[in-house]
């Protein structure tokens, strides 16, 4: 078992122990905070799949989270509360959106791709603002959590928390399987040299699109979970600031490690929590930290933790 997987296991274990610590220190708020952390970890993980492994810088990833959350919100608004409808619908909606956005933006690459995904992300934001039937700018409140019957009561925060952790662990496991599968290796090869992969006869566009759709679907799942945690959805979920945050989580944690984004989500949201308590101008501090990361060290926390094993990689040419 390699060090990355050990780190992933330790991270999940640590997250699983949060409710115990919350009980021991009598800080019930921690469960709520870390449920949020774990949900954003899932979203960041989904971004790492295309950013780290396929080299696709998507600056509009928050749209899938927003779509997943809005799917739950809108279904609930129309009186459909079944969790077995909510979650599949959220995943399908965001996967379809990723299919359409990906099919167009993957025709381009590099900086075009960044700008286009950013623009599509903002499109989702402005769309949500302009639909007054579902709250428009004010957002939409959800009456209660997705209904899974008495088997799985999501309104119990402990149950919900462990559901999120189980999903995160499952996705990490699937993620490790995926990136080391033939499909994952092809993605990484495309990142290093797409032209060569094309010349070898691989339809690289399809592989990238498939990865993009998987990533969007997982991010939509994170959105559905977030809607269940906050019981409120608003356009700000899809603001480009959110997409930037997801990128920062992946970079701060360490790209192309899968566990890195999880660590990144923990660091970022903890930092945000602490800074927001100190000053209303916390985004400025985050911005400064971000600048320092870019200027002085980009391997991320996972990169530092895993440094001993780090193999010197050739720089991909995009």
């Amino acid at each position: 078992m390699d060090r990355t997987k050990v780190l992933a296991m330790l991270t999940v274990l640590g997250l699983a122990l949060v409710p115990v610590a919350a009980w021991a220190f009598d800080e019930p708020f921690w469960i709520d905070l870390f449920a949020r952390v774990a949900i954003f970890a899932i979203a960041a993980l989904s971004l790492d799949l295309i950013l780290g492994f396929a080299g696709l810088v998507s600056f509009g990833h928050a749209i899938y989270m927003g779509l997943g959350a809005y799917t739950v919100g809108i279904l609930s608004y129309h009186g459909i509360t079944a969790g077995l409808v909510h979650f599949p619908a959220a995943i399908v909606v965001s996967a379809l959106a990723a299919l359409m956005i990906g099919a167009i933006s993957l025709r381009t690459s590099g900086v075009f791709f960044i700008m286009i995904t950013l623009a599509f992300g903002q499109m989702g934001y402005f769309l949500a603002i302009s639909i007054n039937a579902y709250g428009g700018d004010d957002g939409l409140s959800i009456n209660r959590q997705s209904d899974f019957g008495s088997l799985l009561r999501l309104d119990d925060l402990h149950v919900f928390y462990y559901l999120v952790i189980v999903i995160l662990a499952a996705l990490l496991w699937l993620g490790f399987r995926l990136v080391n599968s033939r499909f994952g290796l092809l993605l990484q090869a495309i990142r290093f040299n797409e032209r060569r992969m094309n010349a070898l006869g691989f339809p690289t566009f399809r592989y990238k699109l498939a990865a993009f759709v998987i990533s969007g679907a997982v991010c939509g799942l994170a959105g559905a979970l977030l809607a269940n945690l906050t019981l409120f959805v608003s356009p700000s979920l899809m603001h480009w600031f959110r997409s930037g945050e997801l990128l920062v989580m992946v970079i701060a944690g360490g790209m192309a490690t899968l566990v890195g984004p999880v660590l990144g989500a923990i660091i970022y949201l903890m930092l945000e929590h602490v800074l927001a308590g100190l000053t209303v101008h916390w985004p400025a501090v985050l911005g400064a930290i971000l600048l320092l990361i870019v200027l002085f060290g980009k391997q991320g926390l996972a990169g530092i933790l895993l440094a001993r094993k780090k193999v010197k990689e050739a720089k991909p040419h995009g």
Partner: protein
Amino acid sequence: MSAGTVLLVEQSLNGLQFGIMLFLMAAGLTLVFGVMNVVNLAHGSLYMVGAYLCASVFAASGSFLLGVSTGIAGATLVGILFEVTVFRRIYDGDHLDHVLATFGLTLICNEVVRMIWGPTALFAAVPQGLAGQVQLMPGLSYPAYRLAIIVVGLMVAGLLYVLVNRTRLGMVIRASASNRTMAAALGVNDVVLYTIVFGLGAALAGLSGLMAAPVFAVTPGMGDNVLILSFVVVVIGGIGSVRGAFLAALLIGFVDTFGRAFLRPLLASLFAGNVADNAAPAMASLLIYALMAVVLFFRPQGLFPPRTR
């Protein structure tokens, strides 16, 4: 003169005015990208700096000219500060570095503005000489300030064309955009050139912002939405092409303005009930992105890609 024609002319002028402001933003972005190969998310911050400085200096001193010069000079200085402190270190990095670093700069700028001027919108006055309406034709009077934006914008676009195509500096800019290593080898001082190009882009963004100030709200983060629309413009026009940015900016300006003005009455005439009221705002906000998607589907390199690359 029928009411329909008046409305059409009025909305065309609105579209032209919006397009020109987008062009001033997009021109800076596309120049910076063309020469330095850098994506600058902080371009919206320069727009914001221009707007805030102009509005507050004008309010304090009563001189619009002083406000305008402070706005442009301030945006240029902040832009040069960005270039010297941050961009110089990341030119060699990949696009992800650029995106993250400039995202960080944007966060910092928005907060600094919020610290200095507070979180609420700042009132930006229209200068007295331009406060009235101009009678363009029978039945149509149009705000003089908006006409001034169109005139100034077209003049700047013309100057920019001359600068890029007819001067020595423009020649060097084009040479660097075409092959910066070769240009540097032939004796172009690329360090100074990059700072000049960045400052030029910043000045254009500042001008765009300060002209927009009385028309739109002056708030922290005001540049972000314009920035993303400018990206759409740059992508549609072809990255690195000033001419493409100009045509695409006008296209986006018209499509967006017409969508917001005419979609609702159009839908109302086609469908019964409140379909129009519900669908029109959503469709109008999607229109330019749909346009972008269509353009990219048929021409991924944009409508007018620069010939040099």
